[in-house]
């Protein structure tokens, strides 16, 4: 866990890519889940943030 946080603080690609992947996956789940309308409403912004973050962080150093 501390390696992951250190990686985030030092702007390393691996942890940031994992974080953005997590956001994308969360956004997709929120979009398609049948339980909460509010989750569906906010799904797009979560996916968008995850995708933009992924594009940016894939250019970070290893």
């Amino acid at each position, binding site marked *: 866990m501390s390696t992951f946080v250190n990686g985030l603080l030092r702007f390393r690609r691996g942890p940031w890519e994992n974080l953005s992947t997590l956001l994308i996956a969360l956004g997709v789940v929120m979009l398609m889940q049948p339980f909460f*309308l509010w989750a569906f409403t906010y799904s*797009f912004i979560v996916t968008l943030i995850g995708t933009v973050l992924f594009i940016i962080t894939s250019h970070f150093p290893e």
Partner: protein
Amino acid sequence: MTDTPIDRMARATPPHVARRVRGLSDRAIAWLFVAPTIFLLLAINIFPLIWTVRLSFTNFAANRPGREVEWVGLRNYQRILTDDGIWANMQTTAHFLIWTITLQVLIGFTLAWLINRKFRGNDLLTTLIVLPMMLSPAVVGNFWTFLYQPQIGLFNYVVELFTGVPASSFSMLGAGGLAKWSIIIVDTWMWTPFVMLICLAGLRSIPDYIYEAADVDRASKWRQFWTITVPMVLPFLMLAVLFRGIENFKMFDMVVLLTGGGPGNETLLASIDLKREAFEKWRTGYSSAYAIILFVTVFGLASIYVKALNKVKER
């Protein structure tokens, strides 16, 4: 000295053209070759995408080009993301996605595992299994529409043979909750071979010496399967899941031919609903926002797909 075609071409090139080409750097020549592709990409992909983003903030209707276009800001997005109907369509899409992927992975992996053994007729069997994947979705849609006919379709008779339920007593494409399963069956029939091929590539990439070492250590076949086979095929499987996920998220043709989104809205996937909004109700601005939401989702999934692909490459 031999006279090659290149030498002959060089001699045939007019001096003024040769001088011009000789003056170009390697980089310039590379750009010259790439330029038509970049131009096409910009004209066919990038420009329409940017235009769609712009339209998604307006109330533009393509069937009324003369009407004044009003800037509505984020209102289209707000309406889509609070619409119960679209939420229900997303759940229909999710039902289709989850079941097709689960069935395709289970059947595809099992088939790959069986095909991976050496036996007579292995190649012929592999070819027969991958045949559905080579058919056009339009052909598959029409073909299965006939198979699902309650009166003359083969599918109902097979069900009757195994369960005793009379063939003409149910309709796979009609009301009664079976339509959403009928599209899952067809997609699974068509695309399981694809998952099987990817799993087969994964299984064949595992070196024999790993199993030999496990045999020496007296690891049981069950343990070998869970500690060697599954972890080493997993990146390939992940790739197949993501690829099928992206493809099925935008599934359109096959389902339109089978059910047209019906009965009612039972099989109304997001892509079919989007087409209705754009080209039947002519709400271009609204449907542009809808398309952007689907695009961002597919783009996000594709990013994960590329990451998984790179991981497989690193192995």
